């Protein structure tokens, strides 16, 4: 608590120093600056961390040439990206081509404004914070389409449509799996969602049957929503022509990546807020350590999980990705809603645990068995390659 009081006091004194008319502006700037700088810096750290970790997963060192242990690699990358030539196609819609990466970055950054970093550390105290978050998150699709359309390149356009199809499909399970938290807390405000999980690790929503499933569904949808591996078909470098980023180069390309990473941080922060107790410490005693530290710790753990997943899984084919969204994610999130309703009706407790746990686990087993038996998922037989001629 002391940390928040300190920050608030500093901000108040700084705002009072400004002239009367400028005070709202200064106040807004002081609220947004830390978020912008912190997540911009985190982007640099995470790019390096990701490359290092992927390297270790693949039995090699990551970047280790620039500075001790390669810690200045992001600086070198930044210089490289800034000095690269910025090429815009002659027939492109220049204005929209220029705006697309910015819109993507702004939508990603806006999501962070409603995340509570402490009891009073919210940039915008919003009654319907989570609705705002998903609303601006939905604008990311617009930015992707702007990029694809303004490039005037059929590969960019196709890539952007593929990306939009994926993002729209995964937005449904994403939102449905977060709705269960809102059902239990009875509020759309993220600060209240965090308040409901204030009693240490046992009161986190992750450790309830519906919260556990919801968290996993939310994380998977997040992966698809921010185009992370294994759902990174929109910008699959190795098989597609970089999707909607085909006609981008230099710093605009870097801004796309920045936006992607910031969106990932925002999503991870939201996951931590909804299911992992937000800025609360695992034990109430540890609350002496400031809330932002806990939130960033949880956020980093989730980012590490994402990197780990990226280092493990191969990319999904576009049709597999769609099938997974509509045939597994959507039914599971709807079932999770039902079991959350049962949980609320039973008012938790052992009975609630058993019933909702059985409901979710049974649904998972049944769905996965049904999907595994589906003709699409049986071992493929190639008529000629596996046929009697070649088998002999």
């Amino acid at each position, binding site marked *: 608590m002391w940390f928040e009081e300190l920050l608030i006091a500093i901000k108040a004194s700084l705002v009072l120093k400004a002239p009367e008319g400028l005070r709202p502006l200064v106040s807004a700037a002081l609220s947004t600056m830390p978020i912008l700088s912190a997540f911009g810096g985190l982007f640099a750290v995470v790019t390096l961390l990701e490359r290092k970790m992927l390297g270790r*997963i693949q039995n090699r060192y990551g970047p280790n040439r620039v500075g001790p242990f390669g810690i200045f690699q992001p600086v070198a990358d930044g210089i490289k990206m800034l000095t690269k030539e910025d090429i815009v196609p002659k027939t492109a819609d220049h204005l929209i081509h220029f705006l697309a990466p910015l819109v993507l970055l702004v939508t990603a950054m806006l999501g962070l404004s409603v995340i509570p970093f402490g009891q009073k550390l919210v940039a915008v105290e919003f009654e319907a914070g989570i609705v705002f978050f998903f609303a601006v998150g939905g604008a990311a699709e617009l930015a992707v389409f702007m990029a694809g359309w303004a490039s005037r390149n059929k590969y960019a356009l196709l890539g952007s449509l593929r990306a939009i199809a994926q993002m729209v499909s995964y937005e449904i399970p994403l939102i449905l799996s977060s709705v269960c938290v809102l059902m239990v807390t009875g509020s759309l405000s993220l600060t209240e969602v965090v308040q409901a999980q204030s009693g240490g690790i046992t009161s986190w929503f992750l450790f309830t049957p519906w919260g556990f499933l919801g968290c996993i569904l939310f994380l998977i949808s997040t992966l698809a929503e921010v185009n992370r591996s294994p759902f990174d078909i929109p910008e699959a470098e190795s098989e597609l022509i970089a999707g909607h980023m085909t006609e981008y180069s230099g710093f605009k390309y870097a801004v796309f990546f920045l936006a992607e990473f910031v969106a990932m941080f925002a999503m991870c922060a939201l996951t931590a807020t909804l299911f992992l107790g937000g800025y609360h410490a695992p034990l109430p005693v540890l609350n002496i350590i400031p809330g932002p530290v806990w939130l960033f710790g949880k956020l980093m753990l989730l980012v590490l999980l994402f990197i*780990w997943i990226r280092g493990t*899984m191969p990319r999904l084919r576009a049709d597999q990705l769609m099938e997974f969204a509509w045939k597994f994610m959507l039914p599971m999130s709807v079932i999770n809603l039902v079991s959350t309703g049962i949980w609320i009706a039973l008012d938790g407790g052992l009975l609630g645990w058993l019933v909702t746990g059985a409901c979710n686990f049974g649904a*998972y*087993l049944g769905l996965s068995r049904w*999907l595994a038996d589906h003709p699409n998922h049986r071992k493929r037989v190639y008529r000629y390659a596996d046929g009697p001629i070649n088998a002999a």
Partner: protein
Amino acid sequence: MIGKGILKGMMETAKNLAGSFHDPERLTTVEYPEQKIPAKENARNFPFLVYDGDDCETGLRCVSCQICEKECPPQCIYIEKDTVKKPDFLGKMQFQPKTFDIDVSVCMGCQICVEVCPFESIRMDRDFEYAQGDRFEGLLLHKDQLAKPNKYYHSIHPTEARETDDIREGKRQDHLAKEKAKAEKLAKAKEEAAAKAKEAQAPTDVDSSEKAS
């Protein structure tokens, strides 16, 4: 069940991640400029000139017979004979090369020059760090760059160097034996000549004595 394979894969990558910090099996990278894998004995790429002793001028085995120059398929060797003769390891007077250049940007490492050299002078090296700022002059190796001591040859290709030394020792022995035989023959011839002269002299003596008597 969906997800089982994913968990299995995640465990595998986690093992890699943790193992890369302590298990050399899981982190096999050799960071090249700082660390190097010790070269294999059979490694060879470009030719060099062997010299005996410490001085590359006097000890150079090459006698500029120019066989390698003629045999070289890509013609990357250029030799110019010296104008004065110097004694080689057998004491014979030979022309040493004044210039001996190998263009390693042209050399294909076929080792034919090594095969044809009758003086065990040109041998294969295993040095590979030839990167240069100037790809024309920088990659044209001159005599002073090519000449390397026999000790170096022993350090890179010990077995081959020992065989070469044996060949040379045999040559020296042969030469010594030949010299000895020659000397003996010469001595014998001298002796014979002396005896003949004596013999020839003796009758004259008789004659003279006869005359005297």
